[in-house]
C-alpha cells in the first residue's frame, strides 16, 4: 500500500459527541450498533427494542428495552506549523512530508465519514491556509494543491497558540504538526490552549539534522528562522555534544507532551501510515 492510498487508523480517546452518524463510539444511544445495556420501558418507551427474554425472565414483570451505542462521526483537525524552520530539506523536505501527512489524514477522515480541517499557523493563523472541517471528497485534493504551492515565509510559529479559537467548542482530535523548534514554554502555551481537545503531537524531524551529522568538517550553519549564521567546526567531540544536547531536548519535549496526554509521534524522513496508526491506537 503506497502513501497515495494509505489511510491512518485513529481512535478518539473519549466517546464522541455530536449528531452525525459515523464510525466512532458515541456518547449517546440509539440506532444500530454495539449493545450497551437494558433500561426499563418507562425510561425509553421504544417497543421495537423490547427484550422479550429478559422481560419474561424478570419476576417483577418489568418490561426491558435494549439500548445500543450510537456510532458518531468526529472532526479531525491538523494544526500545522508553517514557520520558516519547516523549510528544512535533508533526507526529505519537511513541508512535502507534512503535506503528505495532511492529505493522508484528509483521506482517512473521508473514508470513515469524519470531517477534516486544517489550520496553518506561522506568526499568526494564516487565513489563506485555513480549511474548516468538512466531509466532502474534494478536500483531499484541495489540501494537496495548497501544500504544493506553499513556501513558508514567516519567522516564528506563535500563531499555534491562537489556533484553538478556530476549533470550536466540541472536543476534537487534533494533530499538532510542527518541528517544535521553539522554547518549551511556548510549546506548553500551545498545549494549554488546546487542553480541552485530544491532542496528538507530531514532531517533524529529519535524520540529517538529528543523527546523520557529519563527524568532521566546517559548516556555516544558517538559522532558517532568524537568518543568523555561525561557523561550526564539526569533530567527533562536538558531534557527541550536539547529539547529547539534541537527545536532552527531545526528552524534555516528550516529557512535556506526556504530561498533556499523549507522547509525541516522530515523523522522520518519511511517512509510515502503519506506524502512525499503531501509535494512535496504542496511546
Amino acid at each position, binding site marked *: 500500500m503506497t502513501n497515495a492510498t494509505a489511510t491512518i487508523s485513529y481512535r478518539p480517546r473519549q466517546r464522541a459527541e455530536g449528531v452525525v452518524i459515523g464510525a466512532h463510539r458515541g456518547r449517546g444511544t440509539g440506532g444500530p450498533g454495539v449493545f450497551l445495556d437494558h433500561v426499563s420501558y418507562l425510561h425509553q418507551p421504544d417497543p421495537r427494542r423490547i427484550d422479550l427474554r429478559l422481560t419474561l425472565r424478570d419476576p417483577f414483570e418489568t418490561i426491558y428495552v435494549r439500548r445500543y451505542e450510537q456510532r458518531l462521526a468526529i472532526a479531525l483537525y491538523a494544526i500545522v506549523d508553517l514557520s520558516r524552520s519547516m523549510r528544512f530539506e*535533508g533526507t*526529505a523536505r519537511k513541508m512535502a512530508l507534512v503535506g503528505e501527512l495532511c492529505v493522508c489524514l484528509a483521506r482517512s477522515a473521508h473514508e470513515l465519514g469524519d470531517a477534516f480541517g486544517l489550520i496553518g499557523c506561522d506568526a499568526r493563523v494564516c487565513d489563506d491556509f485555513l480549511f474548516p472541517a468538512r466531509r466532502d471528497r474534494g478536500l483531499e485534493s484541495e489540501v494537496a494543491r495548497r501544500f504544493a504551492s506553499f513556501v513558508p515565509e514567516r519567522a516564528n510559529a506563535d500563531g499555534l497558540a491562537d489556533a484553538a479559537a478556530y476549533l470550536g467548542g466540541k472536543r476534537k482530535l487534533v494533530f499538532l504538526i510542527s518541528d517544535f523548534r521553539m522554547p518549551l514554554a511556548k510549546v506548553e502555551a500551545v498545549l494549554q490552549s488546546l487542553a480541552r481537545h485530544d491532542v496528538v503531537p507530531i514532531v517533524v524531524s529529519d535524520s*540529517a539534522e538529528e543523527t546523520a551529522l*557529519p563527524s568532521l568538517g*566546517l559548516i556555516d550553519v544558517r538559522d532558517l528562522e532568524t537568518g543568523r549564521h*555561525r561557523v561550526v567546526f564539526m569533530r567527533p567531540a562536538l558531534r557527541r555534544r550536539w547529539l547529547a544536547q539534541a537527545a536532552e531536548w527531545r526528552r524534555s519535549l516528550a516529557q512535556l507532551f506526556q504530561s498533556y496526554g499523549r507522547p509525541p509521534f516522530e515523523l522522520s524522513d518519511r511517512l509510515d501510515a502503519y506506524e502512525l496508526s499503531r501509535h494512535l491506537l496504542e496511546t
Partner: protein
Amino acid sequence: MNYMVVEPRFLWLLLLAPLPFLAPTLRRASFPTLDAVPKDLPSSLLSFAIKAAAAVAIIAAVIALARPYRLAQSVKLLATGAHVVIVIDRSLSMDFTLNDDETASNAESKIKMAVRLLKDFVARTEHDEFGVVAFSTAPVFVLPITGHHAAVQAALTAMLQPGIPGTNVGLGLELALRMIARDPHATSPAILFVSDGEYGGAGFFSVDMQESLRTAFRKENTHLYWLFLRPHKGNEDILAAPPPGQEDTPNTKPERHIDLFFKSLGITYRIFWADSPRAIQDAVAEINHLETRPVTYFEQIPRKDVTKLAYAIAAFACLLLVAAKLLETGFARAPQVERWTASS
C-alpha cells in the same frame, strides 16, 4: 620601518580587505534553528581565523601588486675595534731601506714595507675604521675616517709616491686629531704614527703647537702608537738620555724629546721600535690586539624588493582558505531532495 611601494595606484584595492567579514566565506547550510547548535569556542576562533586569513590574503595580494620595497638604510651596529688614523711620514728618508741604503734596489724601502704591512693590517680587521694622513713639510689630508676598506687600501697605495724632503710631525698629528674631532662616530680613536725619525733637528714643535696638541690629545682621549722605523745601530739607544756632557735638547735628539713629549701627555701611548720587517709585523699585530674597544659602526643595507614576501604571505593565507574549503561540509541531503531543489 621604511617601506614604500612602486605602484601605489593598486593600493585603493585595500578597500576590499573587510570583504571577508561582510560576505560569507563558506557555503551556508540551512538548519531549523541555531539554538540546537552547541556553542563552541574552537569553532568561533576558527571562524574568525578563516575570515582573518581571507582578509590577509586580500591585503597581501594587493600589496604585492603594488610591489613594495624596503628603503635603503644604515644600521647602527656595535663591534670591537677602533677608529685608527694612520699618520705616515712621507719624508724623503722613508724611501730608503731600513739600513739607510738609498740604492739597494733589491731591498724593500721603509715606506713600501710599512704600506704592505699596514694594508695587511687593514685587510685583517673587519670593523675598524681608518683615516689616512701623510705629512712631510705640510700635512696632506688623504682619507677621512671611513669603514670602506677598499678606499683605505687605495689611500695606502697612494703613499708609495716618492717622498718630499722635510718633516713636520706636529702639523701631521694636528690634522689627524682634527679628523678625529670632526667625526662624531669616532668613539674609540687611535693614532698610528708611522715615522722613522730623522727629523734633522728641524721638526720639533713650537710651544704653541705643544699646547694645542696636548689639549687635543686629552680632549679626544686618543690612543697613540708610534711605529718607529729605525734600525739599532750598535747598542746606541736613541731614545735614552745622552751620556753626561753631551747636549740633551730637542735639536740634538729630536726623537728622544718627541717620545718624552708623548709620554707626558697622560694618554695610552706605546712606541714600537721596529728595525726589521718582522718587528714591524709584530708591532702591527700588537696594535691590532690592543685596539679592541667597543665601536659603533654603520652598515649600509641596500633597498630590497619584498614583493616575493608579500606574495608568499598571500599564498599561505590562500592555502589556509583552501584547507577550510576542503573541510567545508554540510548536512546530509538525499539525492531526490537535491533534484527537487534544482528543478524548483
